């Protein structure tokens, strides 16, 4: 089991009130799985993904990723854990505008202190894998939205993460480009990458092996 959540709750203070974003969620994701988390806006999908991605802490409950308890990690431990174990893809691509595609993909490897030559080689391989072998030295401003999202996916895979998390990865793309990204996710999963996506996009959700439905901070089906 690569992801295991047990009775996870997450509350947010809003003024004098508390919002119960997650209300006792338990979930398991197996190695090599491709899971889509779906549900209406505000149901707690992104909160759940943030907890799996170790960028947020649960109010209670346990979160285990790749065999390691991550729910009470310090910021430093969590940063290192994310660097080596988790790849993130977001709705907005957030590439560094002054860096080329190759340099953007190499960035997490530089942070992980991978030698420079190895970084370049792997970044080029990843960009070729996502279909951008001819755009290595282009800057984000010279690329389409679909191309930028491909670079973001390659960046997410750069440190060979155990888990790829995606939050509305097709949200800013047109239908045709969205379909290409869906196909890329399927290919990634077929090649062994464990993927968890949060989405409103039915096509993307239907492409996953499993669907988990959420409502009001709870898993209602899956």
């Amino acid at each position, binding site marked *: 089991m690569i992801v295991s959540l047990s009775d996870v709750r997450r509350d947010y203070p809003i003024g004098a009130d508390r919002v119960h974003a997650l209300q006792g969620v338990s979930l398991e994701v197996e190695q090599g799985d491709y899971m889509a988390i779906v549900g209406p806006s505000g149901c707690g999908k992104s909160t759940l993904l943030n907890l799996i991605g170790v960028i947020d802490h649960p109010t209670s409950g346990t979160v285990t990723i790749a065999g390691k308890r991550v729910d009470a990690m310090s910021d*430093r431990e969590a940063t290192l854990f994310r660097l080596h174990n988790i790849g993130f893809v977001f709705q907005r691509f957030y590439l560094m505008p002054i860096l080329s595609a190759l340099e953007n993909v190499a960035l*997490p490897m530089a942070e992980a202190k991978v030698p420079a030559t190895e970084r370049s080689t792997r970044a080029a391989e990843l960009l070729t894998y996502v279909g951008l072998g001819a755009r290595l030295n282009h800057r984000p401003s010279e690329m389409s939205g679909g191309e930028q999202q491909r670079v973001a996916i390659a960046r997410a895979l750069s440190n060979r993460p155990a888990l790829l998390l995606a939050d509305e990865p097709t949200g800013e793309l047109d239908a045709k480009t969205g379909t290409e990204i869906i196909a890329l996710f399927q290919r990634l999963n077929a090649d062994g990458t464990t993927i968890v996506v949060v989405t409103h996009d039915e096509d993307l959700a239907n492409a996953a092996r499993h669907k988990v439905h959420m409502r009001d901070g709870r898993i209602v089906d899956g």
Partner: protein
Amino acid sequence: MLAVLGVAIAAAMLLDMVMLATGMRESFRELLVSRGYDIRLAPKGTLPFDTDATIPGVSAIIATLRSNPDVREISPVLGGSIHISARDRDVSASIIGINPTVQGDYELLSGRDVVSSDAIGANDYLLAKLGARLGDTLAVATGYDPQTRTYSGQRRLVLAGRVKFLYGAAEQAGAVVKRETLEAMNPDRTDRASLFMVRVRKGANPDSVRSWIETRIPNVTAISIATAIAEVDFRLSYFRQLAFILGAVSLFVGFLLVTTLVTVSVNERAGEIAVMRAIGVSRAHVVQQVVLEGVAISLAGAILGLGLGLVTARYLNAILSAFPGLPMAIDFFLFQAKAAWAAMGLLIAAGIGAGIYPAWRAASLPIAESLRREAIA
């Protein structure tokens, strides 16, 4: 670009204030040391050419000074004013009487020095007022009564040389003759001097000689370069305080500007920073990037400000140097590489300081919260 220009203006102001704080003192010191005279003797209680007062007994004073083995050279200078009749009008000018072999008051630009008793040298401003050329004979008088339009102490002198006075003010007509010539034109001033300039032996301490002079010649004030600079420092303390205050304000404005710019930049890139943190970029790296951004803005502003500061300093210097009575050789804004580096260093240090607050904000961004806000936006 506009933001960098704002920092550049603050940098230029800071540089100008650093130049103003030290410029006048340094250019005055350079002027004093330029001809190698270490001590000036003025009438007791005055500064050189502060008043029309003179020191009597030139011969006796020279004899006393020569008795000190550390005194190498003495240049007595007699000052006064002259009137020259030119094309039915009176042209007035200041004049000094010197010994041309030992003088530190002027440079000969062309023609001959005033080695003969009928020779006179004039600066360009006087030559222009007279419309005269080298070789012309001038009727020069030390006195003029405007009521009767009569001259006294008049003498015909040949315009021998074109000179530039080291201590001359802008648009000040000036002339030079041998001291004996000026004494002969004005018998009241025989054996008197307005100023003595004294050069000491190499290796001798000018301040020891100055003390010795004041004990031996009680009717003079002896001023060494060090005491002259101390006096200038005292008289210019207002300028220095003003420069210090304006410089500090400029630095603070630059600091606030860079802090604001980097903070705005961090706020605009909150989502980008949150994603960087999410993919594993450390807080230390984020802090480093943001501080570097502050330094880069400061550095760009400093480089631009250096050029801007030099141009404005030159312009302001031209205005201030035209003040009546100030030697033209005195600069208010003097460029010194050390001072410029100090100003630029201060600004870059301010840039580092300015990056700390936004860097702290960037590193403290809650990742999930920032991503949620970005998604809603």
